[in-house]
């Protein structure tokens, strides 16, 4: 069908990766958190003196997300899958202050006075579902020329573009995903390009602005694509026309990025020395002490000049330094293996291969490299690089020691029932003897994507202190009949299947001919 082809073509344009944080990178998320904190606080500026060293802003469009009000809530009597690998039969979970306060056997968790108590006997509770790969907002509903903002298919390397600048917060798809238990997601640019641009990680909380949806402190991702899509898009527009040119294109981009990165690092080194800031600026005492001799820099010494900013290379340099996770759309086993070597060549890390229809062929290599496979349960066949599918792909990637399987959607329909995708993958894995219990399979939708997206300190499991991103299911979520009854994000009840007033409705849909609004995914 034509519509399907268009969908498939759109699918081509997507995907990112799951990267593990490198030691080098650790400074960055901290910086971002600090920036986010500063931006959400009132004008109170940090006490440290303004640096004279030029540093491009890392977070110029900071999150303005604030959790909505929540009441202390005790959910009791449910089967709880924590996302951390445990299953608690007849368990209880206490949400307070937007965080998870306690999880355990029903009789071991007590609620403060006045807490809302929810009897969840017969129901199941999981962490909020996380989709590592969506184009909600950048390819929203309705799909029109006006809203088609996911692929900057004008040049093969467009690392300068940021998906957040395309996201339409009024996409009705967000509301349907919420009814499917989705609490966080990574919105990626499409896969038309070798390097498609930056992703953005959102909380699935409706906002007037994208900033109101941005996951506080989450790193950016970079979207890259292997194989057929860039060839198809650029084959007659100057290339790449071949897979070898795809590789050449990435490598040249990394070479340029490495040079750019070095230019800035050299500048920072020189400038810090020149301005006497070559000790950590947040260490007040030392900075002061050190600052003295340079208060009066030698007049004949010229101040180091900051390099010109280049948005394209800035993002790539961020990926090289580990600040930005690398999400690689790649289907074929042989191409993934080359990408892993290329990552070593340039000293970066691939966070996840997205789609990876052939991941099972190199599941051992993926695991050895600590790379996740963000995969479908059974989509296949829309093109030759997606021909060699097996229904056990996810389970086989998961089965490797240190294997990391993630169930992703890449679809505004699929994102609404990622639990069913995991169920199918689990069932097929079990049939071949892999013995995957629900408490393990749920990680494919929660902890594993959270790790790959580097938001696992905040969400992805039902562990004390984490954001209370929680789904109460009507039944075992590994069943086609299970529906999300209640979805909490940071403790706020943002979806209740029984109460249409607790279902979001986007501006686009409101006031259209009455269509018997039923709430949530039913709309």
């Amino acid at each position: 069908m034509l519509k399907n082809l268009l969908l498939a073509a759109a699918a081509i344009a997507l995907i990112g990766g799951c990267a593990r944080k490198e030691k080098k990178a650790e400074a960055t998320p901290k910086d971002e958190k600090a920036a986010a904190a500063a931006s959400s606080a009132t004008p109170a500026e940090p006490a440290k003196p303004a640096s004279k060293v030029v540093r491009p802003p890392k977070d110029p469009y900071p999150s303005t997300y604030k959790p909505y009000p929540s009441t202390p809530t005790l959910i009791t009597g449910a089967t709880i899958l924590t996302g951390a690998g445990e299953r608690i039969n007849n368990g209880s979970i206490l949400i307070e202050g937007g965080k998870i306060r306690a999880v355990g056997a029903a009789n071991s968790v007590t609620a403060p006075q006045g807490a809302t108590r929810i009897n969840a006997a017969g129901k199941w509770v999981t962490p909020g579902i996380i989709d590592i790969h969506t184009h909600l907002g950048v390819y929203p509903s309705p799909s029109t020329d006006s809203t088609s903002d996911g692929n900057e298919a004008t040049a093969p390397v467009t690392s300068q573009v940021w998906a957040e600048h395309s996201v339409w917060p009024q996409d009705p798809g967000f509301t349907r995903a919420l009814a499917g238990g989705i609490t966080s997601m990574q919105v990626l640019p499409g896969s038309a390009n070798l390097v498609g641009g930056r992703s953005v990680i959102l909380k699935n909380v409706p906002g007037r602005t994208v900033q109101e949806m941005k996951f506080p402190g989450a790193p950016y991702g970079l979207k890259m694509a292997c194989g057929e899509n860039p060839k198809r898009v650029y084959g007659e527009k100057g290339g790449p026309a071949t897979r070898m040119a795809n590789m050449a294109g990435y490598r040249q981009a990394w070479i340029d990025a490495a040079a750019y990165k070095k230019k800035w690092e050299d500048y920072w080194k020189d400038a810090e020395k020149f301005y006497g800031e070559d000790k950590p600026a947040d260490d007040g005492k030392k900075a002061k002490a050190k600052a003295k001799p340079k208060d009066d820099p030698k007049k004949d010494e010229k101040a180091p000049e900051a390099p010109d900013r280049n948005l394209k290379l800035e993002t790539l340099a961020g990926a090289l330094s580990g600040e930005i996770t690398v999400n690689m759309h790649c289907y074929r086993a042989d191409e993934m293996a080359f990408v892993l070597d290329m990552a070593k060549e340039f000293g970066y890390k691939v966070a996840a291969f997205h789609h990876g229809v052939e991941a099972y062929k190199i599941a051992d290599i993926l695991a050895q490299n600590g790379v996740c496979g963000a995969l479908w349960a059974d989509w296949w066949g829309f093109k030759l690089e997606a021909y060699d599918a097996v229904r056990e792909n996810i389970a086989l990637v998961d089965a490797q020691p240190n294997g990391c399987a993630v169930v992703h959607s890449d679809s505004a329909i699929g994102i609404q029932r990622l639990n069913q995708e995991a169920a199918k993958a689990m069932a097929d894995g079990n049939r071949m003897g892999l013995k995957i219990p629900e408490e393990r399979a749920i990680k494919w939708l929660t902890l594993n994507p959270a790790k790959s997206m580097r938001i696992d300190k905040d969400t992805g499991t039902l562990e004390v202190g984490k954001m209370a991103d929680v789904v109460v299911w009507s039944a075992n979520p590994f069943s086609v009949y299970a529906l999300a009854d209640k979805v909490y994000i940071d403790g706020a009840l943002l979806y209740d299947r029984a109460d249409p007033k607790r279902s979001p409705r986007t501006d686009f849909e409101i006031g259209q001919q009455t269509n018997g609004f039923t709430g949530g995914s039913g709309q």
Partner: protein
Amino acid sequence: MICARTIFAAAVLALTAAAATAQPVLIRNARVHTMSAAGVIENGDVLLNDGVVVQVGVEVAPPAGATVIEAAGKVVTPGIFAAYSTLGLEELSLDGEANDASTRDNFPLSASLDATDAFNNTSSLIAINRAGGVTRALTTPEPGSKIFGGRAAVVDLSGRIASVTLAGAAQNAVLGYQGATRTGDSRLGAFAVIREYFDEAKAYAANPRDYKSRARDNDMTFADLEALIPVVEGRQPILLAADSAVDLRGIIRLKTDYNINVIVLGGTEAWRVAGELAATNIPVIMDPAANLPGSFEDLGSTLANAARLQKAGVRIAFFNPDGGTTHNLRLLTQQAGNAVAHGLPYEAALAAITINPAAIYGLSGRLGSLEPGKAGDVVIWDGDPLEVTTRAVAVFIDGRAMSMQNRQTRMRERYKNLERGDLPFAYRGQD
């Protein structure tokens, strides 16, 4: 040489198909969804012989020489019937050579294209979907630059050469925005063009020789008009793709004006005109998971569509436009399960992927339910067939047990153990 081998293999297959119908099969002690007046039979037995269902009931005695399959704890249904696909016409969607489902550019012929001319009984999709319980499918050409795609056929998924159950099962055409893009980018054009085709086909049918000698001002080919004659004479149904309530009302008028046999494909807003569709006996092949306003013709898209249509008395069947109309026909059961989760009665959901498609294409006397005399298309499931964790464990087509192996199971066997062996992977898991 390769050619010769192919022909040889085909000959062997044909022989197997011809010879394999003899042995009776008795499936015992299953939960049997007959999809007939007999309803659900607990601890039920199904006897197959000579390609057909011979008996359905309890404690059926095995005839001499019968293969007996103990199916306690299992569920038996008729084979899944995919109401819409491009099976055998499309191996890979985005590969020109491996996709015959539609013509490109301004290819002049449309309605006269016939699925049976290119149906590939060796397509890998057949065994893959069959392992998911699918035994019959409508396969259809899809519209290229004109609103008509061509003549669809009902096929079985046995893989044999003689797989065509019914040629010319339906004509396929698009209205709605898909039609509009082929007719001056306006729905006005789509309705005007289809009426003109119908009028011309009737004129042609009335007196072909005279018609051919007349001066004409359109680009309709005689072949296409001839192909539309059974449609305008009401002998062949026509699939009309449309979603909005407005377009669906236009289709109801078309049906009334021309007295044709119409099937709606899509119908995301069909629930808005459910009463009229039921009254005019128009079935709807729909996606029960469609719930997004993907365009302005889908604003009323809702997961309640299937249940509302069924309640109003509209005959519904399912198709799977998300994730591969054809590659994943095996997910029709999941779609049906989701329809149940959103209010469709269970038996109605099962009907939408078994007896209803058979009825839509005039084949309910032969297919779609487990009744004596009907084709031996039977699936044994290891649980609730609409549940995502359930799989088919045995599939019969025309009474013959089908192989459950396919390209995907072979690939899994080849790579399930990644330890280096004495020979490369290319030596593992061969046929």
